């Protein structure tokens, strides 16, 4: 028999500590499961929270490294532009930085947010213009399924161009967006209200959101192709021995 050579270590951010917190907080589970409606609401809530979080920075004309905008990609703060892959992405032993693959390992970006170049702002404005066109076509076709996120994404692009109007002369896309912002903000307000009402009426949804935030995992639906419930039916108390 040998004396133990090191102290038993329980990781303060590990699964046991998380499980203990779940039980003490009477949360339903450690692997959040949800209905499809929960998942949709959680996505809307996350988008609203992102808008709230980013608004001031974007209106100041700045973006964080790796900030993602649909159809533009990931912002690389050093290069002041958007690229298709995240900053520092590793693939086949190479690392993606400022639009190029390199063999040298990339250190964590430690700088703050930066302003995009006028060229990058032009790309943003073109996407904003396309999005408005698609939105108007969807309205004409009375397509009510047109994603609410497009409103949020458009707002972020609008705020960013607005924040850089002293160094960049906006064109048609921005001018049209100035008129549409009222609609997007109205849509955002109604989404915010819907999420708040849903959360108020569904304690389990609130628990799922709390768990998701604490664990850093996304809420996912239990529905899928698998059949479930084929084990566990014999349990009446502890299986301890």
């Amino acid at each position, binding site marked *: 028999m040998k004396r*133990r050579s090191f102290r*038993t270590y329980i990781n303060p951010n590990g699964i*046991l500590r998380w*499980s203990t917190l779940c039980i003490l907080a009477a949360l339903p589970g*450690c692997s959040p499961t949800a209905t499809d409606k929960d998942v949709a609401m959680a996505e809307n809530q996350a988008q609203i929270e992102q808008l709230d979080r980013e608004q001031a920075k974007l209106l100041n004309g700045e973006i964080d490294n790796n900030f993602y905008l649909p159809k533009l990609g990931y912002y690389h703060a050093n290069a002041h532009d958007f690229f298709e892959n995240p900053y520092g992405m590793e693939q086949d032993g190479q690392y993606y930085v400022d639009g190029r693959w390199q063999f040298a390992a990339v250190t964590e970006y430690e700088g703050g947010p930066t302003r995009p170049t006028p060229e990058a702002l032009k790309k943003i404005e073109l996407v904003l213009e396309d999005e408005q066109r698609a939105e108007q076509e969807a309205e004409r076709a009375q397509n009510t399924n047109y994603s609410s996120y497009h409103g949020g994404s458009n707002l972020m692009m609008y705020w960013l161009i607005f924040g850089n109007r002293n160094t960049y002369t906006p064109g048609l896309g921005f001018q049209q967006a100035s008129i549409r912002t009222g609609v997007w903000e109205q849509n955002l307000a109604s989404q915010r209200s819907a999420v708040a009402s849903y959360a108020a009426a569904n304690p389990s949804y609130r628990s799922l959101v709390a768990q998701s935030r604490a664990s850093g995992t996304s809420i996912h639906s239990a529905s899928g192709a698998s059949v*479930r419930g084929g084990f566990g039916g014999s349990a009446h108390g*502890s299986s*301890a021995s």
Partner: protein
Amino acid sequence: MIQLQYNTPRPDWHQQVEEAGLIWHGAGSEPYWTEGQHLALSLQEAETLEDAATELHALCLEACDQIVRRDWFSRLAISDLVAAQVQTSWMARDFSIYGRFDLAWDGTGTPKLLEYNADTPTSLLEASVIQWDWLEAVAPQSDQLNSIHEALIERWKRIPENRMHFACSWENQEDRQTIAYLAETAEQAGKSVELMDMEEIGFSPAGRFTGLDEIPIEKLFKLYPWEWMAREPFFAEIGQERSRFIEPIWKMMLSNKAILPILWELNPGHPLLLPATFSKESLCAQGVSQWVEKPFLGREGAGIALMNRGRQTCAGGDGYQDNPRVFQKHANLFTAGRMHFVWGLWIVGDSCHGLSARGDTSPITGNLSRFFPHKIV
């Protein structure tokens, strides 16, 4: 000489043990974790228990081999359908993590095997972490038979799969914390881990068991008895997925009390075994007058009866009336302070890595029996 000793409780012990994960340290007004008393053993006494467990584990593996070779599954009341899976699992040596022997030993003679909790052993967290923390705070100059934590981490490293699921009956907090602790050790071995309820396990059209994200399960540790799984719908789907389950299904041969008479039959007179039979007449014919009746698949003392010359002197909780029984000669437990103690010896892989003790005023250890830390002086 083994002693039950008193010590000054840590003033903040409730908080200490809860922070370490032991949130069921009492049931109502009855304590489960014993903070103010402990068992003190000499190094020689601890090594006697340790060596006994390692040897018993080897005997048990040999017994599994014999059960499979001689097709003795009916003696364990294992059906043909289940036996086929057990046999394949044993032949393939499906991977096992851990188990706990319960031994009787009053400090004289040799320890005696009471049972092998090989499939779903609990009290792991308190044996591995809580009593070690206690030792460091209360008796830091003393030692403890306890390398369970690091042995578990090393054991997980032998599994090539990187993603592991851990499942139990979610309503039971002790079971949840037991799988969470095991997952913690797997996480420290570099695995990605997820906890889930047994009921959440899915079965996909592609013939794979799945997690809630629909991704096929690579390895699943289940703290849920195989005999329960065997009567549930998904058991029919085990097939090629069998080896993904830990503990493996071959452990059904050891977690069944029928292993006791089989061990005695294969190793008659072995100093670590008690005479045990499938009928009381056979036991009485060996001159045994005090014995214990145990249901094949009983848990936490339920269904156990202590008998003296045919008269019942003590009984555990209700249950398992329909289970077949084994009859095992009575063995003296270590007693002190009006408590009876059973030694838990923890096997990780194939060797003994820990000692724990449960004490009760009843000679039958049950689910409310107290956990006592130990120190080696």
